[in-house]
């Protein structure tokens, strides 16, 4: 019986692998003959063939600039509203995160109100930064980038405005509900399902314009960023709705649904947003093409196939069927493949053009974010191995890992994207270039402290817990200095966010430069 399950699983896994190999082979071969032409149609006619020397042609640019400016103008309002909302949630979410972090070493601080107890503050932090900051800003960047890669203005540009208003209201309602103890009670799914209806509806207002824009595109080929965005926008609504339907599951089945969802929020929503964004901005800022189309395909389809099945590695050693745990472990390890593909594609380009990091702060954010994506993914794969998981599961190490992905990777990429797109979208330069550098170093140093502290503290905590001859108290005591260090790192990050928010407000509210298009667009990237 159990032997049959193992055999069946192994077979289905082999079939998936073969399907993946075939898919990539087919698309790649097909593309190699026809797509060579299409690949170049992303450029204006006449541009192709000269791309390897981006310094050369200045004249041809103008034609394209005007078209581009038109594209950006249409998306401007929804993008800015969403970015502003995202930054608002980031600041608020960071504050709650900081409070939660401090409470772990000042447990008696702010204990008089139910709304400020650790269990709620921590939950508010997660929901605000994931569904507020990361999702809204990610959608903003997608709304800005998608029309650009498709060479056509954003369609139905008013819908995202409605969506943003609805999303903000729903998220606020969700936050108030959580603060008052009204929660669905599952990690990543705390917002009451009644409120989730609002979020799901809002999602439609984001998805439809992007799909319609994609359908009306002026280029034949869809650039890799578009795959990630389009797939993410297909996946997330389905995931979100299915996982939030109430009264279907209970007990352990509910836990598998919970982690199927929670990890897919990362894998099939936040990661596509981040990887897609990095795929656009890295070559865009450096001005050189991505290393290999084949690797893009491998990275994208590998992510779809493997990432979608890793969720149960959150329940290793738990009361779930052995086979589904092993399945998730195997798929976690298989994530090495797409991550390696993306890593080669992006890092090779950055590594060959290190000069650009000095030139462009947005690129610094995006490139570092992409690098941390590779690290976070490799770390996640290793963490899923049973021997490693025994130590790290149930400890602060996991929290460190989650922040490496959601912060080190996604948030840094989004910072870079926002720094890049705001001047182009608004025609207003960032007023304080030094503040951008300060923001970069605050969050990078802060995050380094944060991550190192939780990683070391988590391992020590896990080892203490695995040793029966050490009392449980020791697994708490041993983490104390690291929890304090985490608060220090978190404070630096929150300070950086505050600076970022102020800078953004000043940038948007300042008077536009005399010749918006010319001033902004003739400058390389953004002044360092």
């Amino acid at each position, binding site marked *: 019986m159990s032997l049959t399950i193992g055999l069946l699983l192994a077979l*289905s896994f082999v079939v998936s692998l073969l399907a993946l190999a075939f898919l990539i082979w087919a698309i790649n071969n097909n593309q190699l003959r026809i*797509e060579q032409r299409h690949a170049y149609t992303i450029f204006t006619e006449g541009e192709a063939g000269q791309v390897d020397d981006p310094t050369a042609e200045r004249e041809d640019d103008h034609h394209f600039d005007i078209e581009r400016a038109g594209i950006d103008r249409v998306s401007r309002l929804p993008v800015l509203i969403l970015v502003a909302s995202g930054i608002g949630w980031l600041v608020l979410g960071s504050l709650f995160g900081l409070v939660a972090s401090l409470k*772990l070493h000042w*447990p*008696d601080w702010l*204990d008089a109100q*139910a709304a400020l*107890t*650790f*269990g709620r503050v*921590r*939950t508010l932090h997660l929901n605000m930064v994931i569904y507020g900051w990361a999702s809204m800003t990610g959608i903003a960047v997608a709304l800005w980038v998608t029309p650009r890669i498709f060479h056509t203005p954003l369609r139905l540009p008013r819908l995202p405005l409605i969506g943003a208003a609805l999303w903000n209201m729903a998220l606020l309602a969700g936050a108030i509900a959580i603060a008052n*103890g009204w929660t669905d*009670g*599952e*990690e990543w799914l705390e917002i009451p399902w009644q409120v989730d209806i609002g979020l799901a509806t809002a999602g439609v207002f984001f998805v439809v314009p992007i*799909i319609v824009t994609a*359908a009306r595109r002026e280029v*034949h*080929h*869809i650039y890799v960023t578009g*795959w990630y965005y*389009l*797939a993410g926008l297909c*996946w997330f609504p*389905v*995931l979100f709705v*299915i996982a939030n339907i109430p009264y279907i599951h*209970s*007990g*352990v089945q509910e*836990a*598998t649904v919970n982690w*199927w969802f929670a990890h*897919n929020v990362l894998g099939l929503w936040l990661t596509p947003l981040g990887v897609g964004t990095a795929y656009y901005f890295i070559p865009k800022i450096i001005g050189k093409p991505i290393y290999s189309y084949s690797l893009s395909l491998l990275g994208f389809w590998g992510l779809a*196939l493997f990432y*979608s*099945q890793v969720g*149960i590695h*959150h*329940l*290793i*050693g*738990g*009361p*779930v*069927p*052995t086979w*589904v745990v092993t399945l998730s472990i195997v798929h976690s390890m298989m994530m090495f493949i797409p991550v390696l593909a993306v890593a080669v594609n992006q890092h090779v380009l950055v590594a060959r053009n290190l000069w650009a990091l000095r030139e462009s702060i947005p690129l610094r954010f995006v490139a570092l974010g992409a690098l941390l994506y590779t690290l976070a993914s490799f770390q996640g794969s290793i963490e899923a191995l*049973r021997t490693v998981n*025994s130590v790290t599961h*149930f400890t*602060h190490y996991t929290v460190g890992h989650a922040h490496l992905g959601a912060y080190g990777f996604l948030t840094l990429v989004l910072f870079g994207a926002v720094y890049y797109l705001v001047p182009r979208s608004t025609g207003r330069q960032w007023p304080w270039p030094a503040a951008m550098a300060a923001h970069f170093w605050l969050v990078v140093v802060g995050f380094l402290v944060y991550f190192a502290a939780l990683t070391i503290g988590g391992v020590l905590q896990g080892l203490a*817990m*695995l040793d*029966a001859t050490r009392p*449980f108290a020791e697994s*708490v*005591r041993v983490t*104390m200095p690291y929890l304090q260090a985490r608060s220090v790192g978190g404070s630096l990050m929150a300070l950086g966010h505050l600076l970022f928010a102020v800078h953004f407000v000043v940038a948007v509210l300042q008077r536009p430069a005399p010749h918006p298009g010319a001033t902004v667009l003739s400058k390389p990237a953004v002044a360092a």
Partner: protein
Amino acid sequence: MNRILPLGVIALGILAFATLMLVIGPAIQIKSMAPTPGLANYSAQELRGREQYVAQGCVYCHSQQPRSADQAPDAERGWGRAAVASDYVYDRPHQLGTMRTGPDLFNVGTRLPSRDWHLTHLYQPRAIFAWSIMPGYPYLFERKSRAGPGDVVVSLPAEHRPAEGVIVAKPAALDLVAYLQGLDHTNPAPARAVRDDGYSERGEPR
């Protein structure tokens, strides 16, 4: 790639496959399991207490899923035998948890059966454990000048007692404690019970 429809269809198809493997497959297998022998449903008070457990966010620091002896010394710590799927049939929403900032609570009712101990601990964990980083829940209690009839007074060491009057548990605290006291999954699991046995082969033979 240059077509949207196949992209979307294959992407959603892969997600459907993942759903089949991670959601539908396990659900079919788990639904076929009868509750662990001896497992009782929650009482009305325990259910109210469970709502408190959920609303306070206890799950963010406390797991409810002891691991097997092949993997970790959970049973030696008194956290109970390895949990199996059929232990959770009455749990909605599930509270398996992913953190052990505090200890596992799946059998806290047998390990710490005292209502009064729990009241003290909920009011001020550091009245017992100086090293504890658990928040106190003073808002589940109230200070009264004297205990009325039916009031449950929290016993506190001198240094944590109010200057005057007594600390009395609100109904929410009593419900929460009733839930904790009822957490007992120590009945032996059926041999064919479902859980992750992936560590078994690593364990020393008995």
